């Protein structure tokens, strides 16, 4: 059974379709990235999964049931929304203690201390949260979300509004949870670099429908045309090489990147004939590397394609 199962999910607000027939699933132990621009429907999907909003049609199941009417099932789920869910007028320890008891954690005191350490806030444990920086609050929010050791963690833009240093810290914490604790993580984000580093599987949402859904590796492999980065033995022959390559039918595009040449091949073309041709022309190739597409390129491609077909 999938941890999350979304089937033909639709949601309309005041006659406007916000979600259009979403279908995806998240398996146990996966770190799932739900990507999309602002207004794509990510938060609405998350809220439906959490049982905070109703679906107009279709299903959003967590552990095989809807969280909307399963109060006790929510004990197995940890949530960090845009708001950290912590109280400025209470100390870090009081906040964690409150949630530990709400979730009926067996040894709340020990767990609170462990979570303070996890978030690196042991020394500030008794300070009011109102005096914390945004990064500290986010880390405390994450500690709060996992204090009951959930099997599934749902995150909404976990590094939004944080400085780069805090972003790295929060990202590392998420990686630790998925690695050491084998927690299933569902993460809403429009931070592509973050998703690329953290997630094993992604869905790209645009205007309420999923445009791509696969593992990051498969998306990279199957998206667009293959590319080669060449480093020539004699950089002075770069212009000649560019000229030659642009005439080959298997080459769709050439770009110069410093002393390297970036060659985009036509779909299905192998790289070896190109290298052979260069050597035949006495242009020595020192290094040839296959270039993977970044998630950002894939994302932009998918979004542009969706815009074009709309």
């Amino acid at each position, binding site marked *: 059974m999938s941890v999350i199962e979304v089937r033909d999910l639709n949601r309309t607000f005041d006659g406007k379709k916000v979600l259009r027939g979403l279908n995806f699933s998240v398996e146990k132990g996966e770190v799932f990235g739900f990507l999309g621009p602002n207004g794509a429907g990510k938060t609405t999907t998350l*809220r439906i999964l*959490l*049982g*905070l*909003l*109703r679906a107009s049609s279709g299903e959003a199941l967590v552990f095989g049931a809807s*969280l*909307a009417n399963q*109060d*006790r099932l*929510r*004990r197995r*789920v940890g*949530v960090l*929304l*845009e*708001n*950290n*869910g*912590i*109280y400025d*007028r*209470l100390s870090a320890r*009081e906040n964690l203690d*409150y*949630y530990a*008891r*709400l*979730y*009926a954690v067996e040894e709340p005191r020990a767990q609170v201390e462990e979570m303070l350490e996890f978030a690196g806030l042991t020394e500030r444990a008794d300070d009011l949260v109102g005096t914390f920086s945004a990064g500290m609050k986010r880390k405390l929010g994450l500690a709060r979300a996992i204090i009951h050791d959930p099997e599934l963690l749902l995150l909404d833009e976990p590094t939004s509004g944080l400085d780069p240093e805090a972003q790295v810290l929060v990202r590392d914490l998420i990686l630790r949870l998925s690695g050491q604790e084998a927690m299933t993580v569902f993460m809403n984000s429009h931070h592509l670099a973050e998703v690329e580093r953290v997630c094993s599987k992604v869905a790209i949402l645009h205007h309420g429908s999923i445009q791509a859904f696969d593992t990051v590796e498969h998306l990279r492999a199957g998206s667009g045309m293959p590319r080669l980065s060449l480093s020539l033995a004699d950089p002075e022959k770069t212009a000649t090489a560019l000229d030659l390559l642009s005439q080959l039918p298997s080459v769709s595009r050439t770009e110069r990147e410093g002393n390297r040449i970036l060659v985009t091949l036509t779909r299905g073309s192998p790289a070896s004939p190109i290298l052979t041709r260069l050597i035949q022309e006495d242009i020595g190739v020192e290094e040839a590397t296959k270039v993977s597409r970044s998630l950002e390129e894939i994302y932009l491609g998918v979004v542009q394609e969706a815009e074009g077909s709309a």
Partner: protein
Amino acid sequence: MNGMLIVAQKEIRQILKSRNVLASAIIFVIVFGGFSSLSTLTSEGGGGPLDQLVFTLVPVLGIFMGYLFSSQAFLREKQGGIVETLLCSPLSLREIWMGKVIGVTVPAYGLTLLAAALILGLANSLSQMTLLPSLPLIAHLFTTVPLFIAATVGLLGFAQLLLGLRENQILNFAIIFALIFLLTMSQALFGSGFTISWVVVGSSLAIAILLLIATSWLTRFLDKERIVITIP
């Protein structure tokens, strides 16, 4: 511990840490409780007026405390978005609402009893004989007053969770006017000759219980979606 009581305990702790809100509540008690009783007690004499004053003024003060603290527990939490996280917890919406109502009612009632003690102290300091509240009045203070506060807090919490930001602003104005009206009414009742009998106390207790049941019934219409889409 029961989830509802955990919420209640947190609300009490938070209210006790909110110095500004506590200061406003105490100032209100002194200004309206102290000065109203001073002006009325100096113009009248004996135990009858004291009973009337405590009977009418103390519940109004309690309702005000409930209003003040419920804004912290319900409205502020909704405006800040924290309520959304709480709705994802294993507690039902009703348990959350009940927990908050208890958590707000306890400190509001505590301060209300202090206000009653202040009025009694002032009355005794102004009188040459010892003035003690009647038994029906004591029963009123320990039964009807907390129920009235709880019903008001429950109703306010219900409305604050249900309504959007603008509607809540309008509601706040309406409540302030209603409180002023209630204070004026309590002043008007004072000296009108009615006595605090067991029948009066029993009737007001019945009204408080009915109000509490009605408020509790209303929470059936509370809905997570409605709360979430009205978060500013």
